[in-house]
């Protein structure tokens, strides 16, 4: 009976692998949601194709960055839904599973399902974007960073809501404002110059600017590169560590 009780010092992220698998199974059943996850990106790509086909390479890499960014929205909704409607937090937090494993497991489970439409967009983009190994690597790295940032922010946000409906307005505002209005789908140079430094410190537009620069679409100064890459790296790490610590803190109500 008590042989299962493991009293070794609690290891960070204990239970991660199986919570990833749990979330993978849960999300894997939502095929319609997976299929429709690219609607906004698809529509925006069609708009760009109609209005200015020359911007399609930028729009395609922007669609990839945006897709990774909106995964945070899914983490936000899923975490709040499971906590508020299912009380899953109570089930999992009163167990040896570590709260940060719950957060990261959820984020990874969602990623592993919703990455496939992104892969499809990336595959289509091969016809439009002249990828070099360094460009592909850069796009991969910044996309991963944007995903980790948005998943972390999404999880943190989810803990502040007591009712699911209240989330929709905020999540729509957050993800559309920083993912669509800011220069993710279009070149940074088309953004008002006075606001460009802001765009360079916000993760989705910073990531897009770095890729646009590597594509040769915009000429980013050395300072601009440092600002975008530095702020992206710092924000990603800070938000991820913050979310892991926040997950631990909020596992227990004060």
């Amino acid at each position: 009976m008590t042989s299962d009780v493991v009293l070794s010092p609690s290891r960070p992220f204990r239970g991660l692998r199986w919570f990833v698998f749990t979330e993978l199974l849960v999300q894997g059943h939502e095929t319609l949601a997976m299929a429709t996850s690219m609607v906004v990106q698809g529509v925006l790509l069609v708009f760009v194709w109609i209005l200015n086909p020359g911007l399609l390479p930028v729009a395609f890499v922007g669609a990839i960055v945006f897709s990774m960014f909106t995964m945070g929205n899914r983490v936000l909704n899923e975490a709040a839904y499971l906590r508020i409607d299912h009380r899953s937090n109570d089930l999992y937090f009163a167990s040896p599973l570590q709260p940060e494993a719950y957060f990261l497991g959820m984020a990874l489970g969602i990623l592993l399902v919703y990455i496939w439409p992104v892969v499809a967009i990336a595959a289509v983009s091969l016809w439009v974007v002249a990828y070099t190994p360094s460009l592909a690597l850069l796009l991969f790295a910044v996309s991963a960073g944007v995903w980790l940032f948005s998943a972390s922010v999404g999880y943190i946000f989810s803990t502040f809501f007591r009712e699911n409906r209240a989330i929709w307005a905020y999540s729509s505002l957050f993800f559309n404002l920083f993912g669509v209005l800011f220069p993710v789908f279009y070149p940074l140079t088309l953004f008002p110059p006075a606001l460009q430094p802001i765009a360079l410190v916000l993760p989705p537009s910073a990531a897009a600017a770095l890729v646009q620069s590597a594509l040769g679409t915009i000429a980013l100064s050395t300072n601009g590169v440092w600002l975008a890459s530095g702020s992206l790296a710092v924000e990603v790490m800070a938000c991820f560590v913050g979310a892991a610590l926040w997950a631990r803190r909020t596992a227990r109500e004060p």
Partner: protein
Amino acid sequence: MSEEALRSVDLRKTYHSRGTPPVEALRGVSIEVRRGERVSLLGRNGAGKTTFLKIASTLLRPTSGTIEIFGEDADRHPERARPYIAVVPQEGKPFFHLTPREQIYTYLRARGIGRETAKSRCEAAIAQMGLESVADRLSITLSGGQRQRTMVATVIATEAPLLFLDEPSIGMDPFARRGVWDSLKGLTRKGSTLLLTTHYLDEAEVLSDRLYIIEGGRVLTAGTADELKRSLGGTLKVTIADGRGLEETLRSFGECVADGGAVTVIVDPSRLRELLDFAVAHEKAATVGPVTLEEAFLRSVGRSINDE
């Protein structure tokens, strides 16, 4: 491992929220649960049962007081207490897009239980909860009772040394409830300890070795179901159909409760014959039955409310 599964001393919890006065949910609750016991917390809605359970299951911090799970300080070192516990949360639901089999198995694996053990416990829990026919259906297609059974199955499959069940049989039909009772009894025979809250007093009576009645964040009384019933002053209740005007004499037999025209008297079996003779002499119909836990609960909580 400590023989004391749970021990709380003077546990207090005050909720503060802006714009409203503080709410004292627990006002010095001291509870002990020995290893292998089944203990129920009874109380009205808002009495503090769930708050206590949440603190005991490391999900909520107390304002003051101490709580230990198998000797581990559950407030200061929750990570040390968590391997010992598993919780069926109030109004908890399984993942709608998992089947009961997937839900139970993945939960056990996430707790660190090995593959073969998880598999066998998963199948055993499915059988115990009568979920065989729906074990591979997505939970979203299950009835409320089947979902609740899935939650209970998920937690009992852990075979954790201390199980917290917050209204475990809510929404279940009478057959399913009895199935849950049998499974929970079986678990304690294997060494687990149960602490549950319920509003079903028959469930509390069948399942519990001991009961705590909580009201207004305090323990009003504690004991076995028989002890609580005996505290009424008798183990039988006699209801006189039209007892108006006889209350004064009836009170000499035991505690009386008037309900419309009827008067119910709690009486010791030794005085039953005398009371029935009295009823017959006054040409009154009388029915006799055992005192239930419900009467003990209502009187205990009712007195507390009246005192306040």
